[in-house]
């Protein structure tokens, strides 16, 4: 029994990081109606930029390194939009998709170019996990959970209590209506990109702290985020959150029942089952004919 509970616990922690990735992805979808493939690279860049400030010549402490890294990731996210997505927004959403795939490929190879394909790490000494009645949690895992809760709580407060959050949600609900209501689109779009980038970077840093850094780390986790977004219904922030948790738990518990080689398949299979039975996601809304 404790075996399954431990798996569940690990699933919750992994899932909370997936949720961080998924929230940004789903926000971008909600406001701009396209699936941003290069979201995964924001994760990677967030982690690698932190490493850059953490190692010589900067050698800043970790928490200090994370701040400029997140800021720079936000700059990347914002300039993606400014230079590439914005000029394309009037056209077919599919061109946006192709552009984002190209961009993702470009950014991933840029990481390889600058930092090499090799595995990197923050060089933290491994620590024995803390034991709570037979369950083990490491400090970093706790940090992950805490940071995820922190970020998501801020998001919750921001979206529900501030005017900014309300205008964001209004835009995600109905783009044209929001424009009529006098919500400033450039400001909303800037805040969406900054939010998505910061969340992706934060998730990437946590992931890197827990494990390692490598150029494909974002791309591999992006599929999990996709699955979470789909599960929650695209554009639905809370759905993405729950979806992320669900994916984390499902794939970790799955290992108990079949070969770990199929761990990734859990998220994929979930996506597929969902498309079969609930094409709009669990919490998704119907969209009609124009």
């Amino acid at each position, binding site marked *: 029994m404790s075996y399954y509970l431990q798996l569940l616990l690990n699933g919750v922690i992994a899932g909370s990081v997936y949720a961080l990735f998924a929230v940004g992805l789903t926000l971008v979808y909600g406001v701009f109606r*396209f*699936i941003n493939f290069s979201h995964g690279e924001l994760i990677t860049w967030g982690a690698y930029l932190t490493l850059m400030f953490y190692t010589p010549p900067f050698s800043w402490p970790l928490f200090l390194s994370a701040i400029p890294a997140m800021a720079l990731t936000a700059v990347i996210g914002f300039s993606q939009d400014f230079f*590439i997505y914005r*000029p*394309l927004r009037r*056209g077919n*959403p*599919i*061109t946006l*998709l*192709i*552009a984002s*795939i*190209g*961009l*993702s*490929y*470009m*950014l*991933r*190879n*840029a990481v*390889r*170019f600058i930092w*090499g*394909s090799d595995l990197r790490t923050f060089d933290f000494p491994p620590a024995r996990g803390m034991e709570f009645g037979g369950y083990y949690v490491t400090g970093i895992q706790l940090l992950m959970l805490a940071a995820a809760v922190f970020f998501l709580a801020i998001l919750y407060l921001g979206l529900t209590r501030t005017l900014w959050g309300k205008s964001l949600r209004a835009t995600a609900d109905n783009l044209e209506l929001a424009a009529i209501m006098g919500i400033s689109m450039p400001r909303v779009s800037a805040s969406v990109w900054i939010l998505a980038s910061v969340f992706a970077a934060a998730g990437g840093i946590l992931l890197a702290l827990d494990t390692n850094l490598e150029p494909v780390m974002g*791309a591999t986790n992006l*599929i999990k985020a*996709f699955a979470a977004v*789909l599960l929650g219904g*695209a554009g639905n922030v809370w759905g993405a959150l729950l979806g992320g948790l669900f994916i984390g738990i499902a794939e970790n518990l799955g290992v108990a029942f079949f*070969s770990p*080689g*199929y761990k*990734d*398949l859990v998220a*994929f*299979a979930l*996506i*597929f089952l969902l*498309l*079969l039975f609930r*094409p709009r996601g669990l919490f998704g809304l119907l969209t009609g*004919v*124009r």
Partner: protein
Amino acid sequence: MDYILHVLILALIYSIFAVSLNLELGYAGLYNFGHVAFFGIGAYISALLSRAGMPVEGAMLCAMAGAGIAGGLLAVPALRVTEDYFGIATLVFAEMFRLVCLNERWLTKGPMGLPGIPRPAWIARGVDGLPVYLILTALAAAGVFLFVRRLTGSPFGRALRVIREDEHIAQAFGKNVLLLKIKTIVTGSALAGLAGTLWAHYISYISPADFTLTETILVVLCVVLGGRGTHWGPVLGAFAVIFFGEAVRFLPIPHELHRYVAPLQGMVYGGILVLIVLKMPSGMIAEHRRNGA
């Protein structure tokens, strides 16, 4: 120059692959980001059958049929969703296919891959067989090209374009959109399967690592670069991409800078994709130019 033959064979195989994707992506507006799965299914089916002793020609036909059926099986659930979800569904399908190939070792030998895939009995092994294999590939490519041209130049292709431009109009005028899309995906998948089987019997070794998202990006690049929804575009795109990749070999790059070549190439490919959609959305050959648009 056998090497030239080799590059030509590769380019022709990629042309078939790109033409098959263009049928879906260019004409029907179906953004299949998992097209490599059908290439892979074709390659695996035909490799497994021919290694089990079936004549290569038969194995190739089975591979095409298998890839087509797999396309149909994917299409039915995947088409229930809107177009960007369709992209994700197909992408996920391709990854699932790769994972199954990696893990079902009793069938696919997993990561070990399948070596020693034979060529048709009447083609010599080794370099001596290259000219004949090139002719075989060229014939297949010409066949595929003519077939797709007949398909897209016909009322069928016109109906696909209606669907691509405005699905609701197509429905309002009695087109069975779902059925037409399924037919397109089945055809496209079978042709991708053909490309896959030609590739498998040519390279003579396949493993799951050959069927990743990178291959999909490459073939999407071929189609988008060459020109979506045109007859010659994907062929041109495939030749351009393959020749560019091989030309890099002849650049005198000092040994110590070699580490930077592949990432740089990747950045170039990604950058080209972005630039095309920004600056040259219709690719090298534009679909509507002849109409003066």
